[in-house]
Structures are given as C-alpha cells and as structure tokens.
C-alpha cells in the first residue's frame, strides 16, 4: 500500500510529533531567564490596570536605566482575567517575578506563593514608614510583610463648572460642604435643568462604596466582631439617606443606573456633579473639556465627618522567582520616591509613598482638574480601609448584595431595615 521508505518517514514523523508534544506538555517554562552573567536577569512584571500601564512603564524605564543588566517585561492583563491567570501560573510554581496584589493577598500567602519581604527590607534599609500605614499594614500577614504599598485610592466629588455657570448657579460644592448642602445644591440644579435626560448628580449608590462610607460617616460599621452590622441604626439611616437621593430625583433611579456612567455624564454635562473615585479622575483630566472645567472637592460631611473608603495595591514577589534579589530591586525602585513620581506622572493613581513630590507629580499630571490637591489632602485626613466592608471572604458575595438586596431596596420592594438584615445575613454566611 505504501512504500516502506514512506512508512518509515511517516511513522518517524508521528512519533517525533507525539514525543515533542509530550515533552512540551510536561516541561515548564521559567518566567524569568538569566543570561549567566553576574546580577543580570530578565524579570516579568504583571499588572492589570490599562490606565496605569503608561505610568508603570515609565517607572520601569527609569529602573532599567539605573540597572542596565536587568530587563523587565511588563505585562498588562485585563482585570477580570488577572487573578485567573495568576492562579493558574502560581499554582504551577511559575508566574511573574513581580506582580500587583490587592486585599486578596491572604489567600496567596496561605498558598505559599509569595515571598516574605522582611529580610530584603532590613537589608536594603527601606522604611515602611514612608508609605501610607493604612495600606502598608494591609500587606502584613501573620507578622510578615509581603507587599510594598504602591498606591492609595480615595473618593472625591467633582462638579462641572461649565454646567453650573450655564444654569446660573451661585452655590457650588466646596471643601467645607455638608450632606445638606449637597442636597440643597442638587435640588437647585434639578429645578434649573431642562432636558429630561439630565440628572442633577451622581452618588455611588452601591453598597460597598456609597452606603458603607455613609455608615462610617454616621459612626457605624459594616462588620463588627466578625458579624455583619448593617441592620444597626446607622446602617438603616445610611440606606434611607441614599434612597432619599434617588426618590427626590437627585441621582438616577435604580432602573436607569445600569448603563449610567458618572464620568461620561460629567463630561457630557448630563450630570452637574458626581462622586468619582480617584482612579477615574485622570479620565476627566484627559477629556477634551477645557482646563478648569472640572472642580474637585472632598465628599460632603455627615455629622462633621467625610470618611471615604480607601484601598491600595502593592508590589509583591513570587516565592518561586529565580531572581529574587533583582525582583526586590525592582519592587524597591517602583515604590521609591523616584519610581513613584515617575508612576504618578502617568496620572492614573495616587502613590502610597507619602513623599510630597509624589502627590505633586499626581496633581501636576492632572493639572486640568481644579482643586485636586486640596480635595485629596482633605480626603486623606479621614479614611477607613475598604476591607473593613469588603473582607476578602465578602468579595465574592458583593454582587449578590447588589442584586438581591440593593436593587430591590432602591426599587422600593424592601424596607431599609429589612435590607440591612438581608445584607448582614449574606456577610455572616460569607464570614462563616
């Protein structure tokens, strides 16, 4: 049927393909490679935020200029794939040398995937006191430091001055304003807006960011003694205050909120003012609106408090990295004042390094936003860690809180006290 020579070639080819595939399937590709010369290394660095890629790359360039023997390959993975990819690679003993971590870090520490940094910190003389303690401590697990804080987010309020001018508004949000001032201004804006698609303002109605911060402003908590306490009087009041904003037509009704984007609404002028997280401020500063169109102030105070939640990421090291010293050098540089300034010049995040020059760089990068420095400084005075409402175990059920509790609550189907109890049940179940 076939000439014997052909058969030999064919069978040889098939065996070769099979063996090659088998070997390829079993072999592991190291995430970093060495060229054999002293101190030289190729490192991999994995991040998720596309808005921060330019800033991180700038800092990486600065690092490579100072460490010519170390090459860094920066990989940006979309956020919803980041942990999936990380889990698979770290689980296989591979993964990037250096990567971002969030408050999900305890899971990775428990799994032995991350390198404790204490000895490197001691050897290099890095001072943890140079970083916002609220964020830095987030990465201290069982007494060991696993991450060096890279940024610190916060929430601010932004108003579109062109819209205020057009509507003939004289009262504008300030760094001294209160919740009542906000409601008064929003009502006045509403009375002057003419288009049916306009809304006076946007306030994050989500439980974790919006309601939880008002609970803290009222002196309450979300989780206490490992139990959900949203059904407390503060919780019920915060929920009621937020729903009142909707019922008075000051924020979009819940049915219209799914495809409502506060940043787009501010830029288009559909909304006169909006609560905006710091990681979205650069979207406003990079918009085509003339400089000074957007003014930033702190959140309105409730009972004299304007607490906002904060969180921040850190750079961590893979426990299986083949180049731990080089990886540490990279982490140290990226979080140093010099590296943080370069990163902040990208404009997308506020560094956790508390040196004045880092905030200066962030403010300069977003110089189109009026009042940014004062607003951030005021916000930094009063913050609580988001993980106090978003414990890692609660991260999973947060969508459930939104869809089964907050949605029906805003739609008027559940009372504030019942929704508080419902949220507590979900939190308690998650905290186990």
């Amino acid at each position, binding site marked *: *049927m*076939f000439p014997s020579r052909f*058969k030999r070639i*064919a*069978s040889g080819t*098939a*065996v070769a*393909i*099979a063996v090659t*595939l*088998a070997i390829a*399937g079993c072999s592991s590709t190291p995430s970093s490679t060495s060229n054999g010369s002293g101190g030289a290394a190729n490192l991999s660095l994995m991040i998720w935020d596309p808005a921060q890629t330019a800033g991180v790359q700038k800092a990486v360039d600065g690092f490579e200029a100072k460490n010519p023997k170390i090459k860094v390959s920066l990989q940006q993975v979309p956020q*919803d794939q980041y*942990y*999936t990819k*990380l*889990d698979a690679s*770290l*689980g296989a003993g591979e993964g990037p040398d250096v990567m971002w971590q969030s408050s*999900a870090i305890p*899971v*990775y520490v*428990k*799994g032995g*995937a991350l390198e404790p940094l204490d000895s490197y910190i001691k050897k290099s003389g890095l001072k943890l006191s140079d970083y916002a303690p609220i964020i830095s401590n987030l990465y201290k697990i069982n007494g060991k430091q696993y991450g060096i804080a890279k940024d610190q987010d916060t929430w601010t309020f932004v108003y579109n001055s062109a819209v205020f001018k057009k509507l003939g508004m004289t009262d504008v949000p300030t760094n001294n304003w209160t919740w009542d001032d906000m409601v008064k201004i929003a009502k006045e804006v509403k009375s002057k807006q003419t288009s*049916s*698609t306009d809304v006076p303002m946007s306030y994050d*109605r*989500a439980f974790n960011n919006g309601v939880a911060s008002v609970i803290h402003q009222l002196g309450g908590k979300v989780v206490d003694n490992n139990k959900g306490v949203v059904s407390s009087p503060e919780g019920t009041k915060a929920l009621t205050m937020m729903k009142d904003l909707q019922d008075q037509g000051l924020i979009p*009704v*819940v*049915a*219209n*909120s*799914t*495809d*409502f984007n506060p940043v787009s609404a501010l830029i288009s002028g*559909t909304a006169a003012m909006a609560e905006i997280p710091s990681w979205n401020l650069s979207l406003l500063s990079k918009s085509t609106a003339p400089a000074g169109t957007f003014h930033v102030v702190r959140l309105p105070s409730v009972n004299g408090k304007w607490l906002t939640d904060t969180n921040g990421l850190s750079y961590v090291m893979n426990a299986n990295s083949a180049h731990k010293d080089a990886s540490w050098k990279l982490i140290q540089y990226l979080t140093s004042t010099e590296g943080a300034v370069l990163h902040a010049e990208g404009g997308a995040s506020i560094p956790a390094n508390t040196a004045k020059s880092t905030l200066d760089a962030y403010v300069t990068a977003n110089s189109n936003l009026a009042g940014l420095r004062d607003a951030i400084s005021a916000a930094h005075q009063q913050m609580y860690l988001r993980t106090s409402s978003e414990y*890692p*175990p609660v*991260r*999973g*059920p*947060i*969508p*459930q809180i*939104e*869809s*089964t509790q*907050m*949605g029906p609550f*805003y739609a008027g189907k559940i009372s504030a006290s019942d929704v508080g109890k419902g949220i507590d049940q979900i939190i308690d179940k998650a905290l186990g």
Partner: protein
Amino acid sequence: MTSSTLLRSSTVATPGPRRNKRRGFGRRDALIGFLFLIPLLAGLLLFRFYGFAYNVWLSFTKAGAFGPPQFIGWGNYQQLFSDSQLAVAVVNTFKFAIIIVPVVIVVSLLCATVMQYKFRGQSAFRAIVFLPAVFLPTAIIFVFGWLFQTQYGLINTTISSLGSSPVSWLGSSTGVTVVITVIVVYLSFSVPTIILYAGMQEIPTEMYEAATLDGARPVRRFFSITLPLLSPSLFFVILTTTIGVLKLFDVPYLLLPPEQSTSVNYGMTVLYYYYQLAFVGIGQRGYAAAVSLVLFVLILAVSLIMFRVQRRFVHYGEDG
C-alpha cells in the same frame, strides 16, 4: 452503505494466500494512523476528559481562588438546594430558552423560506442573513447595548419622539428579557437558517407539484410537506439552539457586568452564576464546579428528553 456491500468489499479485499501479509500491513498502517491521532487524543484527554474529571473532583472540595482544594464530600451539593441565587439563575436560564429558541426557529424558518424564492436583492438578503454569523459577538452585544441605552439610545429616542416615555431596558426583568432575546436571536439565527435552507433543498419538487395538483395551497404545502420532511434538520437546529441558549453567558455578562449592576439578577444565567462564583472576588471554585455540573445535568436531561420526543415528530424518510 449496507451490510451486504460491506461484506462484499471485505471479501474482495482479503484473498486467501496473501491474507496474513495484508493483515500485517493493515496493523502497521493502523499503528501509523493511531500515532497521528495521538496529538488529537492527547488534547481530548487533557482538555476534555481530564478537565471534566477534575471538575467533578473539585465539586467535592472547598476550593478557593488559590491553594490546594480541601475535600468536603457532598457539602457543595447540599448547599445547592438552599441557594436562592442558583434558583434565580436556573429559572432565568429556562425562561430564556423557552422564549428564545422558538423565536430563533420561527425567524430561521421564515428566512430559509424567503431564501428559496428568487427576487430582486436575493444575494443581498442572503448576505444580510449570514452576516451575524461572522460578526464579533462582543461588538454586536455592545452595539445593541447602546441602541437600548436608557438615556441616549436610539430605541428610547425613537420612543420619546413618538410621544411615549422612555423605557428602562436594563432596569426591569421584562426589559432585560426583551433586550437579551433580541440580541441572542440576532446572533443565533444565521446558521440555523442555512441548515434549514439546505434541508429544504433536499425536499423533492415532485412532492410540491403533486400537492399543488391535488389542490394544496402554500400554507397547507408548508405544514404538510415542508415541515415534516424538514423535521430532521429542524430537530438538529432546535437541539443545538436549545443547548446554546442553556449555556448563555456573554450577552448578560456584557450587558449587566457583575461589579456595578443592581439589575444583574434579571439576566443571571447558570453559566453567569458559575462565572461569578469561580472568578469574581476570591472565588468559590469547589461550589462553582458543583453548579457547573448542575448545568451539565440540566443540558443532558433536556437533550435526552428531546431525543425521546423527536421519535414521534421527526421523519427520517424510508431509509431512516
């Protein structure tokens, strides 16, 4: 090929004296063939069978996003019965299947029927029918998302210009059902149309001619000739569309992203719920695996029922 022709050919292929040598050749040929199949089999073993078996194992464990799974026996399966979110997801999944599958079939049948006639613009019509099959689904979903956008969407702008109040398409269960139905039907009707059209080509024209001579009108011809003789293609299309809709994920996920939506439950499907459990937050992959097996069992059950029911309605012709 019938069994008698098979016998004949095997007899011809194995004459007495050379039989052993030929058989030896056949074995070696088969061996080479199998060696070439190894990459495919390896892929199947690794990505299908191993993946499925690992998923079954995971469903008996408490597995987070990272770290070794911990065996917990039937714990995850017990949890399934008290999970109200899963109930919402199952009800939604079947609701979408019950609404979407008939619409896809009716639209495909209509388009396939129209494609049979010659008319001006026939080629353009065929191209328009097949376009959704080659479009990027994500792009289509976003375009429809913008069309149905509450404040600025073209649909609401049109409704407003006609004097009615705008509809919160993504803010109510009915609205979400309508939007998802429209998008899924648009994305799904092309291939069934082609299959049904091909099935219609197989129907002998003599049947229609005979029926016409007997006085059957077009509607009668459609229901008495086209539909029965098209039933094998129709069954295939119904089965594959049903399975596709039971696995619905991309449309609700892109329209109602989990992290910001209070309306996400209106579009929550079993696969979307699985995704939330497994990949959002810290992950509950053990329980998610149990949920995915629920979907597997549901699809299997629906498929078996459909195969059982089709015996009564599907005509495979005299040969079948």
